[in-house]
């Protein structure tokens, strides 16, 4: 992708990403927040594309849309007032939180900008799918397998927690009496 094209995609995508991200926490509807988050992460995927990481970008968009849809369902199912009809406030100490967030951002941004990051500036843009494939199948094989195990147990754990009633038909969750 040429520099101009990159810029053309980057600026709007970055701006939209940040705007949607901020809106996630400004809306009073949780369903909307979920969709806004989907948007933010989607725009981030777009940024990835602009930054020549096509595979990662596409993956991001696909994964996040899947996840966010599930999330929105969750919220519609379980949350009070998912549509934000009552306009309830879901924040506390917004000013203080914002101040902290601004400080964190400023610190990180200043450090990032002030640093003369090492490495080549020129050259090929970013690893392509094939390279990532080699990486996964060679050096990072163990991590890859491990990530798979992690996903498996996340599923098991999620099911354990979320499912109503016992898998074996028992309705006797454990308990420990304490005073």
């Amino acid at each position, binding site marked *: 992708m040429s520099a101009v094209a990159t810029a053309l995609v980057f600026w709007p995508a970055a701006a939209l990403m940040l705007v949607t991200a901020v809106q996630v926490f400004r809306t009073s509807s949780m369903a909307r927040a979920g969709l806004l988050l989907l948007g933010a992460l989607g725009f981030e995927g777009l940024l990835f594309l602009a930054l020549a990481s096509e595979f990662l970008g596409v993956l991001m968009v696909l994964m996040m849309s899947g996840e966010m849809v599930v999330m929105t369902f969750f919220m519609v199912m379980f949350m009070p007032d998912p549509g934000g009809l009552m306009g309830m406030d879901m924040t506390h100490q917004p000013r203080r939180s914002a101040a902290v967030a601004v400080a964190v951002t400023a610190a990180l941004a200043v*450090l*990032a900008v002030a640093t003369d990051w090492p490495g080549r500036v020129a050259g090929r843009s970013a690893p392509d799918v094939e390279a990532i494939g080699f990486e996964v199948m060679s050096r990072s094989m*163990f*991590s890859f397998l491990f990530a798979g195990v992690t996903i498996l147990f*996340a599923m098991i754990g999620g099911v354990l927690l979320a499912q109503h009633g016992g898998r074996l038909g*028992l309705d006797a*969750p454990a308990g*420990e009496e304490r005073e």
Partner: protein
Amino acid sequence: MDNVGTYAQAKAVEDTMLHELVWLVPIGALVVTALGAVLLAIVLPRGRQGAVGVFVATGHLAAAAVAGVVWADRGFKAVMSGTVMVDGLSLMLCMIVGVGGAACVALAHPTVSGTDREGEFGALLAAASLGAVVLGSAADIGLLAISLGLSSLATFVLTGYLRDSPRGNEASIKYYLFGTVSGAAMTYGLSWWFGVTGSTSLAAVGRALPDAPTGVVVGSTALVLVGLGYKAALVPFHFWTPDAYDGAPLSVAAYLSVVSKLAGLAAIARVLPLALPGDTAGWSTAIAVLAALTMTLGNLAALGQRNTVRLLAYSSIAQSGYLLMGIAAIERSPGGLSSFAFYAMAYAVANLTAFAVIIAVQRERRSVDLDALRGLGRAHPWWTAALTLSALSLLGLPPLAGFFAKLEVFRASIDAGQSWLAVVAVVNTVISLVFYLRLCAPAILDRGTPTPGPVRRHRGLRAAMATMAAATVLGGLAAEPLLGLAEAARIL
């Protein structure tokens, strides 16, 4: 390594990896345990789910044993293209996790036996152990992040295992939120490390960071410490600890306080020297300060507790501080790592003993309040003995394992020129006396409260209690084998 590989290269890498699998047997044992537990939980009928627990415990012990064999037979090696370190630190962690995990399974038996998710409990516990061991072995940014993820999320679920308990839910949500936020902060720091290095290998990071601009090093290291520090329950990332222990099943609290915590500390002990070699950015001193803060805050907060679980939670925070003393000395004293390793072993057995007794008492008296321990000596002299031994060992009194552990970390600290930290630790030890005595003294000195009635005996629980208590004593009186082991612990 960072070139785009060819098939031939990939093939060569795979061959090497196959050869290296031998070193991965301990981790493999835990993988088999975790997956096997899942399979067993699916296959076994509802009446036989208890077998999963036995299987998981056996698997843990096997992993520990295999780790010992690998240590003795194979030596240390960086495997999987340098992403996994099989060295003294990781094998030691594997042994602790193996034995500790098995003990926790035994401790959990009274709680989970016969419940609806008994099989999954074992499987998740094994997964958490797997995550813990890999966390302590990882020499790669990616592996570090994902292993922290696995070990965390498995324990999030375990903490919330008592789904009908509001306390359990609260505990697991707080733990989860604190943990994920910390993990996310860590990944941000890791991303900068990558930016400085161009590789996710910690060894490569270690080559690049000393020359990197201070600001980036400081910022990223601080963020990385958040994730690892939360796992190890260091101040100021300890807030979740008492609440999570309090709400979780007691056996899970024991697990968190031993396996999870030690994995996090082992990760710190590996990551910092690897990524910041030669005391880059003076992290030793920073860790020493953290150690002082952690032990002080933990001990002070433990003073006023009436709830034994919270008391032990704060105690374990304080113990993290002492453990950090060893880590703070790694760069400056040859005894730093070994003192950490020995302290970890001594702490694990003593803390598990204490939890075992608390669980036994909770089963019988339906309370974890300190008052429930009153007069325990008359009814259960052996429980009382175990509790006393563990409290005194945690306090660091000779000739128990905890004493030699303290001796080791003090020695390392002074040797590393951090005598002030040793003095802080001494003051803290004195403070800690008050609540450790409060834990064990009423059991011996007070008259008892009546027992509610006969309670089912759990052989596993008793066996774990006896084994750990015996280890607490033997780890002191016969400290030589373990000390020898700890002395040999090395970071590759």
